[in-house]
């Protein structure tokens, strides 16, 4: 390979954490102006690898060559001064400062002469790359897409040679994704290398020149995505034995089980959205998907429906015709509701408690308690059966919840909630951060529960997932909900526009006439 064209190469890099080898002798190269995808399931070692490149952690073994010279990148500061920029999945911006102030803060002293020069440079760059952000606006007023543009701008202003993006599209609408890709291609054509971390195969195929696939901390393959199908790449990510995406048949639900009538809640914090007159109806034997970009009121909707937040008007939430808005989560469970929360560790499970205790958390009614006395054998028995039936990988029923990987814990929590045979299941981000194999087993669980007559509400940011499993779909934008349509009668582009709020301009449509 032409040595002088190489920007970065990693040679036999390893990083160990207690109990896990995050990276095991990983070697890869990145040429100037190349867009390289780093693919892998959760826990495959992608994040650790880029953290080493960005100087957040140091490798235990192996070496790193930057423009042909061996270097040790000791800190993100050093990485930045070398020309490495990174856009994290969770943005690191100050909400109470303006765009320009945020950029200023990230620069070394003496990088620009004065504020006016910086301002001119921001405007020039944002025009050149179509990264439209007003330097005077405050960050808390920016949409997620705009915040991401700010982060990219912040990297560009320092003449970045390598831009690392960690799952950049997970928070964007399909339209915003297209815009981002355009920017990235322009950058690459000017010689900037891009390391694109993702597990969305379609995007990788559309954007990247080359892909390196990590599995279990090792490089499991390399390919040119354009020559592959998403399926063949997925095989490299998960191995040959896993069952990949399936098509599930769509159904039409029967009786209404869960209804909200003009459900409104004020925001819980100054930067929150709250809910404004949300009307939805969830029927027996269907999955209703709620699409939307993070931060548009999903948390408020989930808390109001689950009973963690009981501020809503008494009559605004009905289960089987009964007013429940003032009941807490435990009382709603007695009415046949189960809930898979957004935050697995810390909400859905107590980190320091065993899986057995975490089974008892929501399943006490299942004969695990006799006159207030806990029956430890029954608890362990149920925990074991949940672990076994859902293929949860763990030490045993006495393992602490925090010792499980995210995907395994999610399988456990969904198993626990499904096991209660709920009439209504509220499910938040069912497969967020879960590997492909586990994701399809979670999907099958939900479909099976639906086919047994449960009403399921799924809130997810993954629009492909919603199209795969939901029977009807609606979008949440700034705390307002669009009307729901049958998944088969719409398409990703249309829902993508709703996610960006287009439904608010339409005439208020009738709530799904099919069920009336």
């Amino acid at each position, binding site marked *: 390979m032409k040595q002088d064209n190489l920007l970065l190469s990693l040679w036999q890099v390893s990083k160990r954490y207690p*109990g896990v080898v995050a990276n095991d002798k990983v070697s890869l190269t990145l040429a100037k102006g190349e867009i390289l995808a780093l693919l892998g399931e959760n826990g495959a070692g992608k994040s650790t690898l880029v953290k080493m490149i960005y100087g957040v952690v140091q490798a235990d073994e192996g070496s790193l060559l930057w423009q042909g010279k*061996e270097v040790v990148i000791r800190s993100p500061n050093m990485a930045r001064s070398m020309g490495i920029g990174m856009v994290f999945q969770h943005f690191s911006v100050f909400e109470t400062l303006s765009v320009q102030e945020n950029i200023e803060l990230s620069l070394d002293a003496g990088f620009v002469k004065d504020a006016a020069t910086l301002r001119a440079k921001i405007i020039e760059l944002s025009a050149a790359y179509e990264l439209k952000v007003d330097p005077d606006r405050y960050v808390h007023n920016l949409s997620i897409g705009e915040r991401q543009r700010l982060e990219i701008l912040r990297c560009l202003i320092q003449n970045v040679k390598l831009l690392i993006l960690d799952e950049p599209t997970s928070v964007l609408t399909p339209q915003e994704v297209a815009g981002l890709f355009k920017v990235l291609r322009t950058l690459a054509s000017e010689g900037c290398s891009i390391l694109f971390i993702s597990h969305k195969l379609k995007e990788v195929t559309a954007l990247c020149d080359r892909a390196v696939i990590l599995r279990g901390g090792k490089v499991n393959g390399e390919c040119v995505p354009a020559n592959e199908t998403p399926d063949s790449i997925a095989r490299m990510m998960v191995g040959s034995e896993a069952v990949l995406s399936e098509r599930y048949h769509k159904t039409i639900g029967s009786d209404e089980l869960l209804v909200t009538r003009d459900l409104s809640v004020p925001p819980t914090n100054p930067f929150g959205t709250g809910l404004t007159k949300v009307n939805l109806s969830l029927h027996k034997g269907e999955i209703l998907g709620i699409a939307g970009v993070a931060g548009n009121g999903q948390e408020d909707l989930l808390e109001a429906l689950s009973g963690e937040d009981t501020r809503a008007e008494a009559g605004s939430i009905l289960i089987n015709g009964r007013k429940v808005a003032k009941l*807490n*989560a435990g009382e709603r469970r007695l009415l046949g509701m189960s809930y898979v929360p957004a935050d697995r560790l810390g*909400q*859905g*499970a107590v980190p320091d408690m065993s899986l057995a205790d975490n089974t008892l958390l929501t399943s006490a009614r299942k004969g695990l308690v006799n006159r207030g006395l*806990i029956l430890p054998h029954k608890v362990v028995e149920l925990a074991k059966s949940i672990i076994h039936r859902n293929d949860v990988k763990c030490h045993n029923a006495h*393992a602490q919840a*925090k010792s499980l990987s995210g995907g395994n814990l999610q399988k456990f929590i969904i198993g626990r909630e499904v096991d209660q045979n709920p009439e209504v299941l509220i499910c938040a981000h069912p497969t967020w951060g879960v590997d492909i194999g586990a994701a399809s087993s979670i999907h099958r669980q939900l479909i099976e529960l639906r086919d047994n007559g449960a009403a399921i509400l799924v809130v997810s940011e993954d629009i492909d997932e919603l199209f795969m499993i939901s029977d009807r779909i609606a979008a949440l934008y700034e705390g307002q909900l669009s009307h729901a349509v049958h998944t088969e009668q719409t398409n990703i582009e249309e829902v993508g526009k709703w996610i960006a709020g287009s439904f608010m301009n339409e005439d208020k449509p009738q709530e799904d006439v099919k069920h009336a």
Partner: protein
Amino acid sequence: MLKTQARLESSKLMSWLSPLIAIVLTMLVSSIMFLALGINPTTAFKVFIIGPLSDSYNLGELMVKTTPLLLCATGLALCYKANIWNIGAEGQLLVGALVGSYFALQANDDSGYGWLAITLLAGAVAGMFWAAIPTLLHQLFHTNLILTTIMLNYIGLYLLLWGVHGPLIDPEGFGFPESAIFADALLLPTIMEDGRASISIVLAVVFAIGSGIILYRTLPGFQLRVFGSDQPAARYAGYSSKFIIWSVMLSAGALAGFAGVAEVTGPIGQLIPQVSPGYGYAAIIVAYLGRLNPFGIIFAAFFMGTLYMGSDLAQIELGMPTAITGLFQGILLFFLLACDFLIHYKIIWQPNKSNSQTAPVSTKQGAA
């Protein structure tokens, strides 16, 4: 090079070893202190540890010291398990003693054990009431429980001093700030021939065991533990935070109040200004020394009681200052908190690799 490394799972073994290590370290450090005072550490420990256990009178006195510690620490452990920072056991104990004394003084020579029961109940209810004040403020105005419970300790103390100097003073006591000595029927039965140990130590152990069973074997106890270790999970599961906070605070108040009334109707036999030498505060250390587990607290309370007794004996036999008890407690708590680090972290020996690695790299860089 020694390095610390996070454990994958918290160590159960370490959570019980940690207090023992802390006790050993406390003994080492206090040996230095004894040497500085010109006292042979072996003699000192003989007085401190062996002394309280040496004869039946001392053993009885040990139980007298242990009882209020055990009662208060059991209540506090329930609070701390629920992550509720009640520092008010001292005040609750004092108010329990004050109100209990008021009831005891209403009795006369004809009163039976029924009146004693009412007196004990009154003390416990007074402690509950004293705990209810900060709880109510917390529920209504989100006041900080640590601050309000501490403040109420002082209010409780001055209330007791007012009582003992004013309305409850013995009219025939020559103006000494003491109440009249309680009628015989108002005194708790003792459990040993000589000495002052009363049945309250038995009750304290029963309460501790009962609390342990509730905490680890019942659903409300489980809910309490979930609430304490992870509030969002408790909210998710639909456990009522109001119910949990009120139950632990009122239980702790009742136990501390009972401890107070059992002091005045037990070993003291009248109301005096010095009902408690800081039992309510020492109970915080006892609760942690016993790992917030009521069964462990039984041992911890006896250990702390030994220290109290030991420092009394050290004053008499070695002429050491009273401050020694406070010093002991402070050092012990300090080491206990430090040793708890080992529950979540382990210390490993790792050859210093990073230095040997960076050296050749920098030379390479220089050559390139």
